[in-house]
């Protein structure tokens, strides 16, 4: 393989070559490589183009914090994912990887013109560059911004993968399986706790995987990791790899996203692609470690410029030297060790540039031993090289002045600006942070959840310190669960402790205004942008962030936050803790929508409620409409019929003979008990005391504000038993409201409330022949007009089934509603339908139901009312029991606004031409010639073609409507103004003659 791969080195399997493609070119790697490590092994640093300036970029990290090396991955048809981090994606034979945000190719990209015009794209450029002329906005600026927005391209095909979700309960959840996390897990598990250990990497070990020369307990680090993981599994610890803790929520709930198949060449098809775990832990140990910071200098983003710790990882974990001739620039001891490892592996170290005047003597001695040139007290002021760094410009710092530059040739520049504890999850809990002056970083302070923070995540450095801290914190977690335990003590040889200093931009002898010194690589934010934001008046760090977009990309400022803070703090002249840090929010790393959806997609997105008769409707070609969670038969089209023709036919058939309708979705509540009638008197507006058993009444329910909440027919079955019906969508709400008053306002009432919606199937028969169809099936009831008049209810048998039979009408025709046990619904429906054939019985759906009721002026709560309509407004003042001392809404009805003149009232509308059907929701005006904006005085609530009326009809809420009978009002539409006359709401059979048998 290439000269950059170090034979036998790393944790990749050198015996298992793997081939994938990058922009169509075949690339060879080994099993265990990531896309980035395999490309680097082939000497390829150029992996992407930056967002705004289209600058050539390479991988700057070796982990999930990667801002630059974002690629599109294709795993077969429909399986395309944009913005995958090349540093995380494991390779397998046949994987297709493409670079992004470039045209026509990665090495030659037309969009790179933006880089030359960078002055136009400074902080807040949206608000400046695209301001004028105004006419340019639609045609030029917006299309330009839209085309430029985003990095990768969204997939267009449906996702064929499936995703899972699970719950997990555990005593101790440990996040991060590096040295601190492993030691914490050992402590907690040995103490007898149920432990779950998660890590986003394919294997446990964390930073130890990059430190093979360390000796823990006289054992090479990797052997210690293997031994420890084996012991943990032996102790029953659940070890989850490729699993990212994405969010830390209240009461120790942590969201985990486990990736199961993206690393496999041929998934079995059964395994979900990802699984979202909702973990409830008694204790959480955060052992997430620290993220290395870049240094901020001109040209710090060229391909080949990389974090020193990441270069060490590529060498030790993947066996890849990131270059042949490296320059190190650092303000922290850790980068020296990366230089030593690379030097020992054959890379020439051209120089170690340390910004500190007097670096650690031991490190200097080690470097000298290897013949490495040391440039202490130096700064980097620039780099050269278009698609790969070629040289670096170095200057000595003397006091506050920067000396003469020297140019050093190299093919990679490894930088370290120190390490930032990973505080993301801790911050999700609203735990507070405190500024650590010595380490120049924020550390966790006050905890808001039951958690411990261990290791580098709380600012510690060096393997031994971190291991022992992890052991302590794991023991602490176990102790707070009542376990007795003692933390193990670890001894580490060949440890690499160290310290460092923190910087704003590195000092330079050049014009800082022209420096392209990047702070946020992914959003192309430079140090100059941050200073500009402060100059232009941004004072809060939150404003600086939004104005510059620093830290707002998908990496959420993992690398840029502290550098951005240091620069903003310097520009503001205010110390860092006074400037503060922006808020971290979940998810920790970009997470697929699929993982969040889990099983809830397609037909499982939400439940579909179906009535017992639904299957008959389906077999008979019903068109459906959703009504709350129900699907209801909308109309039953015959061959070639459109909706209008079908509804028209269904309406005519019902009024001419008989129609059959599935009303099972109506809400049904059984109100039972010695105080049932008193309860009904208090809940509903109507008087119930004198309603005899066997009789039914239209009931109206208000809120205590006096507005209509629900309605329905209510039958009294016995002195202490009511069968209450509600609107389809209102059933749960009404029962909730009833329970609320019963439990909390009137606990003295002896009443039971039970939802029976799904226990009953309800079949409505309407039309002059309805009784003829039904009567032969009814046992134990005299159905004559005298014995069983309109608004009656009886318990009897229908078709052999126990039944509650109502004689009521929502059509204006003679009507019956038969309630039978749900299981009998379809059987009875078929019996009635068969028997009705000789009367040309017609099944109808909700649309015909709507038309028939509108012809009679019967309202639908929620369509003709909107939560601001009183019974009087709706023409239902007759339904109020005025003699009752109180009911819900009575006092509300006396509120000044509710008794005022000129309220919007429900009236009928007939269009002047007798042909035009109004649009529901259309606004009404009194004068169509008034200047805009016109004064709107109401709106159309219901509008249909009416066969019975022979013309379109409508209802509307209109200001002072009752006093406008006969007046002409206007409905302005985009293309014309429609004239209509105000009428009453009953358009058919105003005397109600058809309700009689």
């Amino acid at each position, binding site marked *: 393989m290439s000269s950059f791969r170090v034979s036998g080195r790393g944790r990749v399997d050198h015996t298992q070559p793997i081939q994938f493609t990058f922009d169509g070119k075949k690339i060879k790697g080994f099993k265990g490589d990531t896309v980035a490590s395999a490309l680097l092994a082939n000497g390829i640093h150029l992996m992407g183009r930056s967002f705004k300036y289209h600058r050539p970029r390479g991988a700057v990290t070796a982990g999930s914090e990667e801002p630059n090396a974002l690629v599109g991955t294709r795993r077969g048809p429909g399986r395309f994912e944009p913005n995958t981090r090349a540093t995380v994606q494991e390779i397998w034979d046949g994987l297709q990887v493409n670079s992004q945000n470039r045209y026509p190719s990665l090495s030659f990209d037309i969009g790179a013109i933006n880089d030359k015009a960078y002055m136009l794209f400074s902080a807040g450029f949206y608000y400046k560059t695209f301001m004028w002329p105004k006419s340019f906005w639609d045609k030029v600026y917006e299309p330009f911004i839209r085309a430029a927005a985003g990095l990768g391209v969204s997939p267009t095909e449906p996702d064929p993968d499936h995703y899972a979700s699970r719950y997990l309960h555990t005593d101790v959840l440990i996040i991060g399986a590096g040295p601190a996390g492993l030691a914490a897990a050992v402590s907690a598990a040995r103490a007898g706790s149920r432990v779950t250990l998660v890590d986003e990497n394919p294997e446990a070990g964390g930073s130890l995987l990059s430190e093979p020369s360390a000796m823990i307990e006289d054992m090479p680090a990797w052997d210690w990791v293997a031994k420890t993981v084996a012991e943990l599994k032996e102790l029953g610890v659940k070890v989850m790899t490729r699993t990212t803790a994405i969010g830390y929520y209240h009461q120790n709930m942590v969201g985990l996203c486990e990736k199961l198949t993206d690393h496999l060449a041929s998934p079995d098809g059964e395994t979900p692609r990802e699984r979202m775990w909702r973990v409830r832990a008694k204790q959480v140990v955060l052992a997430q470690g620290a993220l290395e910071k870049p240094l901020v200098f001109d040209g710090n983003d060229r391909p080949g410029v990389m974090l020193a710790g990441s270069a060490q990882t590529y060498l030790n974990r993947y066996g890849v030297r990131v270059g042949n001739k490296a320059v190190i620039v650092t303000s922290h001891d850790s980068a020296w060790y990366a230089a030593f490892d690379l030097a020992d592996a054959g890379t020439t170290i051209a120089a170690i540039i340390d910004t500190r005047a007097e670096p650690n003597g031991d490190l200097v001695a080690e470097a000298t031993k290897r013949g490495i040139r040391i440039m202490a007290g130096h700064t980097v002021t620039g780099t050269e090289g278009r698609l790969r760094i070629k040289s670096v410009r170095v200057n000595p710092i003397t006091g506050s002045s920067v000396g003469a530059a020297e140019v050093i040739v190299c093919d990679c520049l490894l930088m370290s600006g120190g390490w930032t504890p990973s505080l993301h999850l801790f911050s999700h809990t*609203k735990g507070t942070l405190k500024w650590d002056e010595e380490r120049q970083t924020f550390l966790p302070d006050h905890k808001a959840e039951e958690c411990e923070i261990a290791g580098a995540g709380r600012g510690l450095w060096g393997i031994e310190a971190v291991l022992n801290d992890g052991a302590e914190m794991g023991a602490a977690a176990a102790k707070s669960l009542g376990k007795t335990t003692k933390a193990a003590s670890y001894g580490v040889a060949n440890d690499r402790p160290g310290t460092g200093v923190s910087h704003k931009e590195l000092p330079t002898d050049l014009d800082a205004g022209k420096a392209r010194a990047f702070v946020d690589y992914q959003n192309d934010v430079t140090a100059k942008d941050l200073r500009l934001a402060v100059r232009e008046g941004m004072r809060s760090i939150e404003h600086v962030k939004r104005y510059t977009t620093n830290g707002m990309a998908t990496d959420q400022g993992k690398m840029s936050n502290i550098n951005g803070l240091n620069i903003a703090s310097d520009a503001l002249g205010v110390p860092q803790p006074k400037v503060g840090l922006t808020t971290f929010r979940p998810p920790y790393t970009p997470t697929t929508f699929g993982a969040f959806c889990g099983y809830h997609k397609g037909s499982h997105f939400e439940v579909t409620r179906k009535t017992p008769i639904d299957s008959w409707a389906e077999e008979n070609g019903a068109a459906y409409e959703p009504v709350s969670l129900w699907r209801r038969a909308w109309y039953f089209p015959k061959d070639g019929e459109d909706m209008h023709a079908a509804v028209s036919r269904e309406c005519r058939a019902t009024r001419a003979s008989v129609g059959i309708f599935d009303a099972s979705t109506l809400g049904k509540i059984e109100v039972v008990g010695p105080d049932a009638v008193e309860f009904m008197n208090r809940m509903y507006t109507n008087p119930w005391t004198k309603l005899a058993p066997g009789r039914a009444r239209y009931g109206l329910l208000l809120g205590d504000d006096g507005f209509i909440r629900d309605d329905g027919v209510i039958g009294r079955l016995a002195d202490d038993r009511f069968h209450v019906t509600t609107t389809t969508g209102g059933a749960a709400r009404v029962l909730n409201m009833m329970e609320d008053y019963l439990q*909390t306002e009137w606990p003295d009432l002896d009443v039971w409330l039970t939802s029976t919606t799904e226990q009953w199937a309800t079949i409505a028969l309407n039309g002059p022949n309805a009784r003829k169809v039904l009567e032969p099936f009814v046992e134990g009831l005299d159905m004559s007009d005298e014995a069983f008049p309109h608004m009656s209810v009886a318990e009897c048998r229908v078709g052999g089934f126990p039944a509650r039979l109502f004689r009521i009408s929502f059509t204006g025709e003679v009507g019956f509603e038969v309630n039978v046990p749900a299981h009998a619904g379809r059987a009875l429906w078929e019996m009635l339908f068969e028997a009705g054939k000789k009367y040309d019985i017609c099944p109808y759906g909700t649309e015909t139901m709507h038309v028939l009721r509108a012809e009679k002026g019967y309202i639908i709560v929620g369509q003709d009312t909107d939560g601001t309509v009183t019974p009087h407004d709706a023409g239902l003042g007759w339904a109020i029991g005025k003699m009752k*001392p109180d009911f819900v809404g009575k006092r509300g009805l006396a*509120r000044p606004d509710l008794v005022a003149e000129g309220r919007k009232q429900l009236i009928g509308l007939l269009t002047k031409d007798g042909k035009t059907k109004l649009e529901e929701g259309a606004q009404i005006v009194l004068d169509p010639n008034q200047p805009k904006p016109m004064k709107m005085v109401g709106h159309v609530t219901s509008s249909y073609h009416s066969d019975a009326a022979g013309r379109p009809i409508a209802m509307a809420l209109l200001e002072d409507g009752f006093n406008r009978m006969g007046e002409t009002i206007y409905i302005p539409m985009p293309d014309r103004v429609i004239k209509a006359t105000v009428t009453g709401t009953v358009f058919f059979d105003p005397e109600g003659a058809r309700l009689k048998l």
Partner: protein
Amino acid sequence: MLLIHCPYCNQTLPEAEFTYAGEAHIARPSDPSSVSDEEWRDFLFIRTNVKGPHYERWRHFHGCGRYFNAVRDTVSDRFLITYKTDDPRPELSKLLEKSK
């Protein structure tokens, strides 16, 4: 997702079983017809909207179905206590003492 203690079931259960039901200790006047428009307005609409410990109602909707009262800190989303509807309103100073 919060865990909420139902004082009737005496169990601590996931938030998904519960529904929120507005501020607590707002009693409906026993004789609404005798109260002024202003008093009725206050009963209907005026709420404390506190930043901090809030007396509020919840219903164990997908459980026992009972309404109960709670004190929850609206800043930290932490429950200080849940209690039965007819229990007396707990004193805040004692609750804060206890939660320390």
